[in-house]
């Protein structure tokens, strides 16, 4: 929000997005802004419309009404792959590995995209860059293993590596800690923090239920309930917010 005051446009601006599936309103008039280098968490109970919002931002669903601006450009009607090449990468809640391909080839698919292959040709080879990415997420020992042989936690990390390969300005993680054990969660948290230290201008948007892990990473939290935004603020404030507690516990305490 500081940047808008200085006249610079927000990195991502979601303006009054509404999405209806028949009579069901999944996302109702949501607006949010993300600035460069900001780490934002998106939380809310099941069915709050977080994943739908994700799909709309990444172009897999088209909104009923509203607009999405990225770096001052309208990207509402662009197809998903063009949005990725503009600089928004995402991971999926249900992992979608390319299971016939070895792990390193999974990452190379991202590197074959226009945005992913921008710099590699004169800096390093594609294999080298894929290996570096795998090392960042700790999968380099498994690089020749077919993705179908990987465990749950490894697949989550593979998704992150694949998203990072396109060098996004905004990375959107859909429940990255879902189903991970504490060690894996700690490792992924550390990976994300290091990732942010390496590239401070990269913004992160995370949907997560594991609030303890989430709060370590993010600067700002947005709470959704039944398709609407009910609260926004710093993690410490959100934890104390009455409305949020009410929504999460299903009534007054």
């Amino acid at each position, binding site marked *: 929000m500081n940047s808008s005051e200085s006249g610079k446009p927000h990195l991502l601006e979601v303006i009054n997005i509404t999405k209806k599936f028949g009579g069901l309103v999944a996302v109702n008039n949501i607006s949010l802004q993300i600035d460069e280098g900001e780490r934002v968490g998106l939380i809310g109970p099941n069915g709050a419309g977080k994943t739908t919002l994700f799909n709309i931002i*990444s172009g*897999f669903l088209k909104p009923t009404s509203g607009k999405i601006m990225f770096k001052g450009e309208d990207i509402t009607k662009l*197809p*998903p*792959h063009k949005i*990725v*090449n503009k600089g928004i*990468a*995402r*991971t*999926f809640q249900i992992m*979608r*590995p*390319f*299971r*016939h*391909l070895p792990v*390193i*080839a*999974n990452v*190379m*698919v*991202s590197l*074959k*995209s*226009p*945005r*992913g292959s921008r710099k590699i040709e004169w800096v390093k080879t*594609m*294999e*080298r860059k*894929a*290996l*570096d990415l795998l*090392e*960042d*997420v*700790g999968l*380099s020992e498994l*690089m*020749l293993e077919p993705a179908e042989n990987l465990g749950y936690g490894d697949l989550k990390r593979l998704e992150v590596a*694949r*998203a990072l*390969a*396109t060098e996004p300005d905004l990375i959107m993680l859909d429940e990255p800690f879902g189903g991970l054990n504490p*060690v894996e969660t700690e*490792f992924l948290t*550390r*990976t994300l923090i*290091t990732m942010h230290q390496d590239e401070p201008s990269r913004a992160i948007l995370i949907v997560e239920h594991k609030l303890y892990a989430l709060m370590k990473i993010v600067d700002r939290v947005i709470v959704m309930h039944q398709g609407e935004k009910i609260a926004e603020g710093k993690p410490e404030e959100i934890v104390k917010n009455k409305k949020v507690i009410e929504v999460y516990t299903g009534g007054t305490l």
Partner: protein
Amino acid sequence: MTLLIKSKLADSLRTVKSYSVRAYSSFIANVFDVPPRLLAFLCFLTLLAIPICWFNSFGGTRYLPIFIHASILAILGASWDLLVGRTGQVSLGHALFFGIGGYVSGILYEQLYGFSYYLTTSVLLMVVLVAVVIGVILSVLVGLRRSMRILLMVVLVAVVIGVILSVLVGSWITIPVAWVTVPIALAIGTLLALLIGLPALRVKGPYLGLFTLCIPLIVQSLVTWPPLYWLTHADFGIVTPQIIIYPLGTSLIIRKSVEYYFTLTLLFISAVAIYKVAISKTGIVFVSILDNELAAKACGINVTKYKLLSFAISGLFGVLAGCLYSHVYLPKVYPTDLGLTNSFLPIIVTYLGGLGTIYGPIVGAYIYTILDDYALPNHFLPILRMMGVNTPYYETKNLIFAVIVILLVIKWPRGIARTIVDKLDDLAKPRDIEERGPRIWKKYKKEQKEGRLRKIFSRFKKKQEEKEVKT
């Protein structure tokens, strides 16, 4: 002076020697020590020796066409496998590519050249200009990189200048008509494949199969349509130009052997080309579309472009197979070439051998053709006749073949060749990745030894180990 020449000669001899030693050792390491590859190599040697085996023994040249047909089917199967086994775009209409090449070539032969065997360069000029236009359209459609487009343009311009020069120099240089008509047929077939690929961007799965199934049938009915009789001669078919023109009086054995080696060479070339595409980075993207289209989109891949590319490459090799069939195997093309049989043959062949492999369609094609054209009619049916079962030839052959295919599919659902290769891999000692793995793996291992690993993973591991030591 002589001394210098001698020393240079010795040097070159030494380099040749070292090259041959290196080639020999790499052959031992990459082919001889790897059982599946050794088997493939032996099979290839056997294929090379087939015409020699049949020279004096049973049947003479009678059985060579069977093997020619097998090679052609193998190319068709491999092209189908690239599209379906590796990109996941279901096509039940490869007969279109199989038939269209012969038709294009035959119509050009009859209408433009009036059945002349040879072509003068002045006609060639016109043809090359058409090819240039098609090439430019293709390069724009496929969306090549700028460097590739420039390269293509340079090559095309060079060809045009060469042709103009040769026309200026004189028109005594003559080439067989087929050498021009077949490349045109290949180009048109590739364009058609792109056109068919366009609806595939909207239609998916079984519906795409249904769509592609209908296309060759439409073309087939166009070909047999009475108002077009002057062009296509309906059921009588069109005579196609010969690719190889023999001197008068060449014996049948020589002719058939030359045809056999010609198709085998083209099978080898196209198999290597398709394999190279499949293991390239583009091939990786193809497999990613097969595995998960949504995720491929989320990786920033323009799925449309890669699907079209896959259609175009598959169509190109499909048309190549069709051209070989209608120029080398038969000198004619019939409407039945566009029929359902040729749509389903590549599927049967690929599933017999193994889907998603390069050796699958080839092995499948040879098994299918040998069973269907050689073993069943020559060995099984006589046995049945001897047992007193007097059966019609064609139906019984098909019945036995169908039963064999069903049994194979139940017993080895992954395909014959794939099952054998998997078993051989199990038999062999576990392959040492450190020695024969990809270059990047070796580099990684080396860095690991030297302790130069990049970032957090190693740090994190160390911390974990420290924790374990403490507890």
